[in-house]
């Protein structure tokens, strides 16, 4: 240990420097956002709760191509399909495990008919463990509920895609 280091140690220079840093922060303007009352702006590209969309005539978009479940890195989507009475291929089971999903948005990218989308809803919760499985009905209901704002968000973002 040379003499300069010794002097530095004994005069606690480094400690005083550290103290000054925090004291400066003490008087700095605070940046906390008072969350439930004030919210930070969201990008239209925000990836929130998953939903299934419908055509304007109410027909569900999904054609059970299973691309989304193939691309999903978390393997959160499980799909079973059958032929419907009118001869079109439709899903009989479409479930997303909300605990597995990492909200990467790959499913949305992969979907050929823009059926599965991510809304900008992030304030939702479940009270039972079983509710983490989002069934087809739940997903369609979410899609119906937030239809307008989701479409608007996708329109805003389409310019950059």
């Amino acid at each position: 240990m040379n003499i300069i280091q010794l002097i530095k140690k004994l005069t606690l220079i480094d400690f005083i420097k550290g103290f000054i840093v925090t004291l400066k922060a003490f008087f700095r303007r605070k940046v906390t956002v008072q969350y439930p009352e004030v919210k930070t702006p969201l990008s239209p590209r925000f990836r929130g709760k998953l939903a299934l969309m419908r055509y304007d005539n109410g027909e569900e978009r999904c054609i059970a191509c299973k691309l989304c479940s193939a691309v999903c890195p978390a393997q959160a989507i499980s799909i079973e399909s059958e032929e419907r009475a009118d001869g079109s291929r439709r899903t009989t089971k479409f479930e997303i495990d909300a605990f597995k999903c990492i909200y990467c948005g790959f499913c949305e990218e992969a979907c050929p008919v823009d059926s599965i989308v991510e809304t900008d809803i992030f304030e939702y919760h479940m009270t039972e463990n079983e509710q983490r499985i989002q069934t087809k009905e739940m997903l369609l209901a979410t899609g119906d509920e937030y239809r307008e704002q989701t479409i608007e968000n996708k329109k805003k973002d389409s310019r950059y895609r």
Partner: protein
Amino acid sequence: MKDFLISFLSFLDPQWINLIWSLLQIAIVTICLILTVVFLVYFERKVIGYMHARVGPNRVGPKGTLQSIADTIKLLLKEVIIPDKADRFFFLLSPLLLLIPALAAWAVIPFSPEFIIADINAGLLYLLALTSFGVYGVILAGWASNSKYAFLGSMRAAAQMVAYEIAMGFALVGVLMAGGSLKLGEIVAAQTGGVLSWFWIPLFPLFIVYFISGIAETNRHPFDLAEGEAEIVAGFHVEYSGIGFAIFFLAEYINMALISVLTSIMFLGGWESFFAGIPFLESSVFSFLTEPSIFWLLLKTLFFLFVFIWLRASFPRYRYDQLMSLGWKVLIPITILWIGVECIMYVMQIGPWSVT
């Protein structure tokens, strides 16, 4: 207030009046201490928040002032869990072993020239004895929990407290020499005069060493190896829940306040005013500013409490071997050296003290 008590209870023996007066004083100090802790928890969270450029608690009550009350109620309502294989008796005893010395030490603190619960002759010795007593609570808590993490934490705490106790004791020897008395009141009286006649100037190294070892004694950041969340979860109180944990918490904060008040008494002139000894002020209308009062003591204590929290917001935790080498290889030699210097100053009559 005592006169009032005497006139009110004049039919009683003076002995009884003294007893009642002491009990009253004890009640006042204890209640004030608990309120201090309530304030301190809020103060700490706010200050650390501000130093992180956040606002800290602001939901419960106006500006979040009732936050610590809410915390306390939450802690008191929680279930007390006693581990199956724990030693029940010691498990329940050890929080009290930590709390009682922490409270008892306040008996000899002179808050103002008149207000002191027990003005005993060996105040300083009493304090040293009681502050080192706290380590039993920590060791027993760790041992009785029958958990490896708790045991590791208490072993660390024991080694650390013993090491820093020595540096602390030596620093107090310096104060003792300068003050010429073991009575805390007389130590303060020896510092009368302005800021320049307080002991922090002639005893500056001891002042710093005392405060650092005080931080280590109370197991506060950056010396909170005993609870090191990162390595041993929460150290010696990992198995405690509800009110047991609350008592540990209370004891820690009371000890913090104790170290702060002692540092102000022994090095910053206790109840002496910052402005005392300035002739210009003493003769003007501001002469009340130069009067000694409990207000100054509280102000100084608050400053040291702020430094405690400031430290916590600023620095990472020490590594255990660094902690030990700081205690044994740096602080103790410095204190011994400075006691030597002080002896020379004493003999040569340099400094504020005079040989009588």
